[in-house]
């Protein structure tokens, strides 16, 4: 049924429909409305048979989920930004232990300087943690990806992080179709883990692994991630058959068929880019868009295939690896390494800086582009900062 709902509420509904048994929460902007939402669903009795554990830190939030999942029940938590960094040791632990926990990440910048607004620095900080990382473009997809995430996680035996742009999606009211409990129950069977903490079959979980075995363990972890590319696609197909909606999968292509230029991106900004591309294609510009849904595992073959005819690839990302540049950009360069296509990097929207149609149109109308562009960078602020720094240096004291 269609509803006009806030993104966070839609996610909360989706999570509740998946019948988790333990939900743990510690508040951080912009994730708060999600955990308030699931809390309300539990307290009101809409979701029965679920423990809502309010903890003292993000470290505890994910740790409670780890304990619950190890004891054999479906568990869920959510965080953002600094919260993700605060729990990062547990993030690696959950994937290393192959616990299929689901976590929503309301994407937000990382400080210092402290900033509560949206970018993807938080997700990028755990891109190599062994979690499956999915990015939603709309609130509908955020809802759908959560339902798919439980299925993927439990099929593969890995935790899944669903990335949802903070504020831009989490706080936006949009129409969303919410499936019925019966439909979700048919799609997502009850969780029945092969191994868990069981008094009848005492197992030691989380043992120390020496150099004799560690390489193999890591190899298998990598293999498992790469194998899950197929499962992510299967779950997308099954979801489409069941709910009649195309959500999830590895990546989404838009107007890429004859495109000479393809913009590759992550998350909700794809919507704005598509509007720009529609306008430009009316002028025969031949521009397409790819938004990556499965950021980890990274769909390298699917991208190679989708980008094979492109002459120019522009990677627009809301993150920056200080000291080298774009992060997704490096990965797309790897995808394009045997082609003649030129790859350009746009760093945009850091710390919630608006990404507007006008900015994108202006970029795409440029005769030539630098390899890396900081979109909407205010040169005057930078000049001023240098002047100030030089001034301080000269005077010897401030």
């Amino acid at each position: 049924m269609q509803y006009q709902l806030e993104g966070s509420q839609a996610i909360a509904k989706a999570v509740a429909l998946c019948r988790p048994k333990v939900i743990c929460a510690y508040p951080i902007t912009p994730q708060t409305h999600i955990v308030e939402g699931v809390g309300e669903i539990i307290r009101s009795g809409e979701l029965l048979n679920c423990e809502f554990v309010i903890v003292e830190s993000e470290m505890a939030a994910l740790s409670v989920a780890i304990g619950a999942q190890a004891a054999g029940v479906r568990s869920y938590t959510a965080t953002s930004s600094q919260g993700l960094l605060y729990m990062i040791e547990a993030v690696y632990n959950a994937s290393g232990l192959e616990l299929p926990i689901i976590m929503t990440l309301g994407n937000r910048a990382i400080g210092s300087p402290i900033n509560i607004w949206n970018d993807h620095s938080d997700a990028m900080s755990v891109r190599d943690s062994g979690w499956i990382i999915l990015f939603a473009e709309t609130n509908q997809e955020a809802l759908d990806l959560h339902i798919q995430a439980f299925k993927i996680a439990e099929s593969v035996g890995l935790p899944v992080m669903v990335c949802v742009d903070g504020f831009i999606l989490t706080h936006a009211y949009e129409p969303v179709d919410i499936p019925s409990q019966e439909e979700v129950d048919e799609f997502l069977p009850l969780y029945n883990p092969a191994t868990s903490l069981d008094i009848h079959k005492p197992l030691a979980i989380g043992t120390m692994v020496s150099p004799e075995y560690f390489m193999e363990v890591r190899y298998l972890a990598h293999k498992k991630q790469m194998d899950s590319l197929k499962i992510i696609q299967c779950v997308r197909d099954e979801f489409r058959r069941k709910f009649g909606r195309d959500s999830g999968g590895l990546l989404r292509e838009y107007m890429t068929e004859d495109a000479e230029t393809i913009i590759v991106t992550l998350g909700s900004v794809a919507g704005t880019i598509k509007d720009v591309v529609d306008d430009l294609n009316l002028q025969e510009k031949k521009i397409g868009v790819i938004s990556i849904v499965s950021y980890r595992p990274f769909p390298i073959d699917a991208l190679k295939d989708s980008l094979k005819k492109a002459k120019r690839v522009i990677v627009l990302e809301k993150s920056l690896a200080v000291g080298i540049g774009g992060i997704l950009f490096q990965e797309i360069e790897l995808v394009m390494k045997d082609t003649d296509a030129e790859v350009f990097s746009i760093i945009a929207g850091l710390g919630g800086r608006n990404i507007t149609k006008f900015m994108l149109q202006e970029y795409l109308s440029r005769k030539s582009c630098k390899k890396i562009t900081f979109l909407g960078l205010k040169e005057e602020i930078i000049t001023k900062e240098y002047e100030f720094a030089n001034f301080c240096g000269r005077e010897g004291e401030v």
Partner: protein
Amino acid sequence: MFQVRIHGRGGQGVVTAAEMLSIAAFLENKRAQAFPSFGSERMGAPVTAFCRISDKEIRLREPILEPDAVIIQDRTVIESSDAFRGIGDNGFILINSSFEIQSNIKNIKIRHIDATGIAMEHIGRPIPNSVLLGSFAALSGIIKIDSVIEAIKAKFSGSIAEKNISAAQVAYKETLKVVI
């Protein structure tokens, strides 16, 4: 696509107004998107919220830079928030004010309504958002007053919903009188 920007202060229901507007449009089978000017505004600080209404899917995620209508819940934010910025030709501005406010922008209609006064009378609290939406329904023709009433019911319940509804209806009728 019809774009509305709402200005006011934290605690006046600015974000709720945008959300209710989007629900009203949704109830009329339109596509709608509402979102706040993301921030950590405390009570009393200037707040902006946005609502887009369209017949097609809305993909655009930028803030509303060229609104077709601006609703101002608190006239004291007009200058500091640059509230008239970007308003398109034939756009209109609806201001919560007991007196007329002038602007030198061409082709712009400015209307005022004493939303706080009506809110105090009917709701008993100076929350002007429902009143302004009632007035907006009459002025814009974009949404029906019945949809505004349903949207209020979606956001509030019990006597608070009833009071907000009667306040919105009063504003709708008063605005219509002048429009006709």
